[in-house]
């Protein structure tokens, strides 16, 4: 009887462990693969990729919105902070930051970006940051910056694409 109880407990504990381990691993693995893919099929790491509007034959991620124009920057802050420049627009704009396990740890809205003030400095904890720009601290060394612009409405696509070409991200060199 005691032996059966031990076996049952071992099975139960291991089941929970397997459940937890798989749920822990899935976001990490998917994020690593996603960042590798986005960098390879885009401008690389620490560089902004200006994406075309998503359509059924051009989908860079699951569940893309065809009503948004995306820019992506896969980042690695190992050697230096990152300067991110955003082309201001009047329509919907958000700049979201994701860490290496898919947490959306910061989102900046369009009203924070103007022609006079369009830069963000991204650092990891403990890293010296240059002054003169909005500061965002990443909880992980690697991650992704995703810029979304609304492209619904007549004539909005060329307007948003004109703003998008000003999007940039690059390591800050001293």
């Amino acid at each position, binding site marked *: 009887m005691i032996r059966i109880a031990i076996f049952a407990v071992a099975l139960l504990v291991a089941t929970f462990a397997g459940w937890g381990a798989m749920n822990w691993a899935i976001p990490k693995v998917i994020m690593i693969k996603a960042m590798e893919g986005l960098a390879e099929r885009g401008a690389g790491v620490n560089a902004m990729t200006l994406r075309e509007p998503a359509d059924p034959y051009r989908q860079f991620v699951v569940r893309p919105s065809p009503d948004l124009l995306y820019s992506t920057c896969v980042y690695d802050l190992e050697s230096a902070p990152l300067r991110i420049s955003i082309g201001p627009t009047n329509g919907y704009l958000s700049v979201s930051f994701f860490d290496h396990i898919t947490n*959306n740890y910061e989102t900046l809205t369009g009203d924070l970006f103007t022609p006079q003030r369009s830069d963000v400095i991204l650092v990891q904890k403990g890293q010296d940051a240059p002054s003169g720009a909005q500061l965002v601290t990443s909880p992980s060394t690697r991650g992704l910056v995703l810029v979304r612009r609304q492209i619904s409405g007549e004539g909005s696509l060329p307007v948003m694409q004109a703003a998008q070409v000003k999007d940039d991200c690059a390591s800050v060199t001293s």
Partner: protein
Amino acid sequence: MQKTILIALACVVAGLVIGAGAALVRSGQNQLGGDKPGAVVDGAWKTDFEIGSENASGALRARIARKGLFALKRTETVYYTRSIDAAGRDLDANCSYRLSGAGFPAEWWSITLYDEASYLAKNRDGAASINRDEVIADDEGWTAIVSASRPDEAVNWISTNGAQTFDLTLRLYRPHLDYLMSGEVSGFPTLERLSCGEGAAS
């Protein structure tokens, strides 16, 4: 004694496989629906307000990684997904539907159709979604036909071409969160099945 250890080890291995397998299957399912007020609207539109949050459970985080990577936090966007019609039947691309709605408690919204793999259905119809700025509406609200064939009349259309089963994702940008999370929200779009089969009415 040795036999007991071997059986215990077998139980551990079996448990790990069962747990990991269950997590893998669960994370591949689209269906959301947390237990917080407002997480399920009108019994069909489902979300989890912890999407994108550091507070998300491991299971939710795994599901979003597979089915909604790079989703935003609720303060910026809330994502509701619907995968059943008004009668509770799974959505089927061999059928046509009437989607009827009005405004939403948000600055801007869109409704997009995704296929069984969570991608935009493979077609060249240019009708994957509707949104607040482009939807044809009147004082009563709006109606969209969800079908494989383009409707004859000038109405909103979401194409099911290229999908087998599908779901609809409602994105609410800059949502009125207090209201959404009050649990008192209703009146999200209804989805009525019109017909099924070859040449389903549109």
